[in-house]
């Protein structure tokens, strides 16, 4: 009844009216108070890139130190801080938030919605992310950056071995960003369930929505493990408790279990959305829908499930019972299957098509190659005897970089090239893009492939320097050169972004002639996203004519919802119309709450318990103001 009602096409007046309702003023207040998912998404992307650059500079310093034997640019202590910050920054402050950035920007546009389900939570999530990063990096100003490795094994992290604030910054900084990621994940799950345009039943969702929803749910289960570990660590250090203290009944292995119960799902959390983006971009350039949509969805979910059953493969060298190790070894081999299914779906999509070789496609083909290399070295280390030989060597460093750079950074760059026109209205330079790709691709392989060799030759990871004549010299020199070539590649990318934003070719609504809803709106999209809420009848709403599908989606006609900030909520599975949602106005409250949290964490760091108490009380007051209803008659849906 609801969706078949005849609508007349909206007029210019409608657009002007919606503009007025959804407009955020370009004042200081507007910038701080906005809850627009597009602005928040772009902030996420830019901030994560700043962290990528920080982590990259740390890597550059390390590669300078390791270029030749017996170099002493850094002391051993300084090197410890640099490699710890490199890992922590890249894995926790770059790899996941950058994907949240894309999802934040794209989800409502993919879903035909006017915003995320919880826009203020979205703003809160960003501010917490930013402030937690500032908190972590403020350790540099007191010269006490975390220095026990990004996985911070106990007992090295216990107070008696690490008396300064280094690992307090680590434990509290991670707890801080955990809150950000948790509220962000909740927002994604709720948005996926409620905010899809009428007709976008779950079997019509874009793959990227599946992958981000899967990892958001994973994060809700995995992050508390890391939180528990960091709470225990902080309590051990500053409240004289004994969780990891084997002399008082604790165990350092408890840290390893909790850390890797989080850590391995996290690997999939930072790669699945990137694979999801690849599953959206490859079909566009192959000019056909993704082959095996159902299989890709199933393997995404399977990866999410099996990802929780493999954590012990990080602990094969800790002396666990053989039965447990065999089980986790088998699970680690099994998880290859769903990933392989996805890769074969891409190959099937490419097969016999005439792919258009634009820059995003180049990066994705590079990614598939790196993924295969990183995947194969992963299968190798899933085998127990091989792992015992190579654990804690540079072979593992090579593996983790092929996986994380290959499956995260390459698709991320591809996705920027692909969605930049939507975000800015301008195309990125294709010529610079090709240079960008080849420099990055060659630099990456030059930098990281030799690490397989130095690892096989026995070079341990995390050493700050090494003696000559062990057969590692050439491999390390090549790695360092490669790392700098790779850095130049990233620099070319940044130049391209900055240059194209100013004078790139005008993109138009749908420059790639792609099939999903975000391309049906102008570039950049108006603040209200969609003039009318679309009705969806297929997975490829913009390709229905050429695919000769039996039903047609409606993207030009539909409800306009002009009585305030409103959008539609639908049912979780079938996406049938459920209700009109009143969306919140711009507000400073998320920012204030995040600032209060910043005070809380500095209070804990400095052990100024009174300050932490004041901050907690402040949080209570702010949350009450947040939740107090704005409208009294009639009550809002949130009442």
């Amino acid at each position, binding site marked *: 009844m609801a969706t078949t009602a005849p*609508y007349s096409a909206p007029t210019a007046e409608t657009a002007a009216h919606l503009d007025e309702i959804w407009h955020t003023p370009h004042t200081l207040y507007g910038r701080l108070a906005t809850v627009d998912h597009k602005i928040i998404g772009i902030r996420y992307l830019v901030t994560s890139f700043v962290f990528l650059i920080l982590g990259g500079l740390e890597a550059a310093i390390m590669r300078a130190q390791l270029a030749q034997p017996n170099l002493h640019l850094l002391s051993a202590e300084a090197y410890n801080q640099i490699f710890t910050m490199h890992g922590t920054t890249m894995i926790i402050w770059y790899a996941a938030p950058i994907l949240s950035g894309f999802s934040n920007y794209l989800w409502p546009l993919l879903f035909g919605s006017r915003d995320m389900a919880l826009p203020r939570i979205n703003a809160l999530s960003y501010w917490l992310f930013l402030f937690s990063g500032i908190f972590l990096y403020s350790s540099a100003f007191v010269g006490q950056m975390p220095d026990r490795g990004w996985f911070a094994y106990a007992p090295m992290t216990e107070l008696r071995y690490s008396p300064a604030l280094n690992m307090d910054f680590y434990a509290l900084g991670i707890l801080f960003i955990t809150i950000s990621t948790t509220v962000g994940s909740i927002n994604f799950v709720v948005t996926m369930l409620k905010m899809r345009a009428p007709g976008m039943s779950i079997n019509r969702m874009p793959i990227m929505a599946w992958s981000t929803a899967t990892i958001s749910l994973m994060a*809700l289960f995995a992050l508390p493990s890391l939180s528990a570990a960091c709470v225990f660590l902080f309590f051990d250090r500053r409240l004289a408790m004994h969780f990891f203290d084997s002399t008082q009944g604790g165990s350092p292995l408890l840290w390893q279990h909790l850390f890797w119960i989080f850590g391995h799902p996290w690997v999939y959390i930072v790669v699945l959305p990137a694979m999801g983006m690849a599953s959206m971009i490859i079909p566009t350039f192959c000019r056909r829908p993704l082959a095996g949509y159902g299989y890709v969805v199933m393997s995404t979910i399977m990866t999410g499930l099996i990802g929780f059953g493999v954590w012990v493969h990080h602990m094969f060298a800790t002396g666990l019972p053989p039965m447990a190790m065999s089980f986790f070894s088998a699970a680690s081999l099994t998880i290859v299957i769903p990933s392989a299914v996805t890769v074969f779906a891409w190959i099937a999509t490419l097969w016999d098509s005439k792919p258009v070789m634009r820059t995003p496609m180049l990066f994705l083909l590079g990614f598939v190659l790196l993924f295969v290399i990183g995947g194969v070295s992963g299968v190798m280390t899933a085998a127990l005897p091989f792992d015992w030989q190579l654990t804690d060597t540079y072979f593992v460093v090579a593996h983790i970089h092929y996986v994380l750079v290959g499956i995260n950074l390459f698709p991320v760059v591809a996705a920027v090239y692909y969605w930049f026109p939507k975000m800015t209205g301008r195309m990125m330079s294709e010529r610079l893009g090709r240079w960008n790709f080849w420099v990055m691709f060659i630099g990456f392989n030059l930098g990281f492939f030799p690490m397989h060799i130095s690892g096989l030759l026995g070079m341990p990871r995390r050493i700050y320097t090494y003696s000559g004549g062990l057969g590692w010299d050439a491999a390390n020199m090549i790695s360092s050169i490669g790392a700098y070539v790779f850095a130049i590649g990233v620099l070319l990318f940044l130049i391209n972004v900055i240059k194209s934003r100013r004078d790139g070719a005008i993109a138009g609504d749908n420059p790639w002639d792609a099939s999903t809803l975000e391309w049906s709106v102008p570039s950049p999209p108006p603040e209200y996203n969609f003039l009318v809420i679309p009705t969806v009848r297929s997975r490829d709403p913009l390709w229905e004519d050429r695919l000769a599908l039996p039903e047609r989606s409606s993207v030009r006609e539909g409800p306009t919802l002009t009585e305030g900030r409103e959008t539609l909520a639908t049912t979780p599975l079938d996406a049938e119309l459920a209700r009109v949602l009143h969306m919140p106005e711009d507000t400073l409250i998320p920012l204030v709450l995040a600032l209060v949290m910043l005070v809380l964490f500095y209070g804990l760091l400095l052990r100024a318990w009174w300050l932490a108490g004041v901050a907690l009380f402040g949080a209570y007051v702010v949350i009450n103001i947040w939740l107090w209803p704005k409208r009294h008659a009639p*009550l809002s849906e949130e009442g």
Partner: protein
Amino acid sequence: MAASIGMDSRHLLPPSTREHPPGWWAMVCLIITEGALFAYFLFSYFYLASMAPQWPPNRLPELRLAGPNTIILIVSSFVMWWSERGIKAGQQMRLRIGLLVTAIMGIVFLVIQSREYAGLKFTASSHAYGSLFITITAFHFAHVVVGVLMMLTTQLRAWLGHFTERHHLAVTNTALYWHFVDIVWLFVFASLYLSPRIWGHT
């Protein structure tokens, strides 16, 4: 018909809907992740217990206070449920009284729990068992405090007449959270107080 501005889609909605709003789903997600946190706490407890030569290291935790306290929490969940049913039937007084009684029971729980702490023969820094016992129960304690604070705000709003038969998400979410806090306590109680009586070893 105001076709030029676009139709008011409210006319197109089904007359009543039982679909849960986003805020309800957000609370469910919060409960999932908080539940996982307690699961990892209890995993840690059993993990260290499995490796200890003697568990618990001193005496078994007493049931004298924790037992009655458990019953208070269970009953409070039923009061909360009764209260929420009240507003679903439009009975404002039932809602207000139910919320008040639940909050008082929560506060009684906190007072008794504080006395339990005062009587403990060990501290959080005595041994790993003490660290676990205090940390897990203190986290639960904090969750009860949050639940009581939520009820105070909801109580105030109930007296201001914010809730109706159809609009009472804050009540539903407070109730969900409260049931969660109670169920978590059952797991904590079973693990910390009952399991050593069955599997404890010296």
